């Protein structure tokens, strides 16, 4: 790369060139890239992947302002140059902030931890969903030092949002009913979030905890929660997703546990649901009624649903790809027949029996696990082995990356989500 000085200045004042992008007057502000009109320069900078932004921001003030602006996100959205990132919450977000991972460039970006409320600790079983350049953290189960007895977890209704333009956490309106382990989904083509069911179970205790059936909807612009018709029965630990297009949209809530029974009146055991409930969203405001599907599997085939992810189907929105990771197998759900069928097997199971994280990114299924855990104090916890499945081509590929986490993390408890920046 020749390190010549930039071309002579008279040629750069051709910002009189008409362009469909709005051009800022290059006379008042310094040029983003000397030698090019500002609208072309902003187009160039908005095409650069997100993982390079941190390195480029210190170049100069105008770059830093541009790369942290709201206009950048909408420009990237228009030009379809958004970076698709996985967001991992290793533990209580007030202790360790989430990590962004870019699989294309194998780049990690730690985010600041959430604001810390000194009375509560051990937040887990929350959900995380991204809308535009904002990452939402909703609810969860935590311990409150002000409560009595101290060792009973309580559900949280707090909602936080991380704004990537200001790189800071914000408080948003809390949910109407506090909950953890609930079904959560972003309403397609709309800045709204629906949450359903939930309970107060904490990862520290694998039993106990309440269950609830209420359903709420959050409007991002108005920052308010509205109650909707509740589920037919109490359900916690369930998964929610949307199917269908604008005319016929359905919100599915699948699986979870409801009643509990005790074995010999001592050991509590969950009664897992084998079905799903579906709400038809017909009108703009509301929900409709809930209908229940039949059992998805016969008794004995499995006890409960594994981790579920949903791939949006652009061609046919009524048939999203619903996949479940159960042990070492991936199953696909057929909405019409209400049945699970074996899709594929995970090619390699790492030597140590660590848990899998299951997340969907750019239409592919990512199965993440630790390759080798090195139990040494203050040392990084080995590497992450990522196996990626393409549902259409039915092929697997894999990636290996260094793990940025200080200690090994339990993927069963870690919260995963994806964000496009």
């Amino acid at each position: 790369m020749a390190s010549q000085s930039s071309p002579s200045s008279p040629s750069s004042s051709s910002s009189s060139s008409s362009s469909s992008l709005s051009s800022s007057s290059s006379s008042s502000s310094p040029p983003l890239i000397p030698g090019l009109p500002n609208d072309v320069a902003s187009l160039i900078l908005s095409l650069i992947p997100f993982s390079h932004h941190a390195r480029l921001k210190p170049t100069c003030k105008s770059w830093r302002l541009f790369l942290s602006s709201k206009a950048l996100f909408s420009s990237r959205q228009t030009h379809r140059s958004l970076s698709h990132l996985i967001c991992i919450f290793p533990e209580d977000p007030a202790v360790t902030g989430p990590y962004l991972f870019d699989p294309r460039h194998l780049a990690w970006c730690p985010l600041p931890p959430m604001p810390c409320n000194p009375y509560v600790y051990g937040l887990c079983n929350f959900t995380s969903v991204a809308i535009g350049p904002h990452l939402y953290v909703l609810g969860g189960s935590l311990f409150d030092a002000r409560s009595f007895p101290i060792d009973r977890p309580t559900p949280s209704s707090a909602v936080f949002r991380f704004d990537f333009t200001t790189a800071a956490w914000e408080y948003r309106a809390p949910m109407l009913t506090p909950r953890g382990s609930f079904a959560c989904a972003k309403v397609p083509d709309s800045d709204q979030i629906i949450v359903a069911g939930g309970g107060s179970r904490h990862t520290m205790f694998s039993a106990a905890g309440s269950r609830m059936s209420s359903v709420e909807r959050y409007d991002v612009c108005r920052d308010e929660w509205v109650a909707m018709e509740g589920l037919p029965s109490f359900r916690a630990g369930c998964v929610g997703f949307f199917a269908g297009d604008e005319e016929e949209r359905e919100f599915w809530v699948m699986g979870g546990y409801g009643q509990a029974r005790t074995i010999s009146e001592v050991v509590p055991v969950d009664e897992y649901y084998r079905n799903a409930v579906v709400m038809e969203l017909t009108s703009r405001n509301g929900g409709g009624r809930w209908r229940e599907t039949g059992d998805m599997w016969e008794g004995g085939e499995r006890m409960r649903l594994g981790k579920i992810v949903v791939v949006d189907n652009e061609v046919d929105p009524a048939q999203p790809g619903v996949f479940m990771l159960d042990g070492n197998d991936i199953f696909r759900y057929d909405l019409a027949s209400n049945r699970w069928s074996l899709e594929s097997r995970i090619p390699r199971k790492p030597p140590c029996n660590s848990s899998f994280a299951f997340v969907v990114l750019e239409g592919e299924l990512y199965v993440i696990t630790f390759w080798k855990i090195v139990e040494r104090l203050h040392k990084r916890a080995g590497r992450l082995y990522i196996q990626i499945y393409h549902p259409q081509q039915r092929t697997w590929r894999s990636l290996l990356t260094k793990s940025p986490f200080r200690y090994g993390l339990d993927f069963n408890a870690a919260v995963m989500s994806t964000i496009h920046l």
Partner: protein
Amino acid sequence: MSRVFKLKSSDNETFEVEEAAALLSETIKSSSSTEITVPNVKAEILGKVVEWCNKHAESEDTKDQLIKEWDAEFVSVDQHVLFKLITAADYLQIKELVDQLTQRVGDMIKAKTLKTVEMTYPTFNVEREVQEELKSLGF
């Protein structure tokens, strides 16, 4: 019977372009006359733009590997030639050419570490900006 457009560069050199190639440019499309003067663009650069237009006009139906390879070679030029090409393509509003050139600049930026970014764009003068900021904070 296709019209022939005449493009005039800033140093008074004229290029004759067939209609199919010329209409790749939105500016020429919306212009009333067949003689267009392109200000601030020298003959050498305008010649390259015309070459790109001709190449893309003749192979409109076959967007295959050969064209991609030709395009990749076309944009791998020196930085200041690249910038002049962008300015010209931006004036003439040839969307695909602008896209290819901006993608190339983006790739060049990505391939650099912070130090070499400073070296290539020396007019940024990071040191001075830091001094100004410190002054504004009262040091």
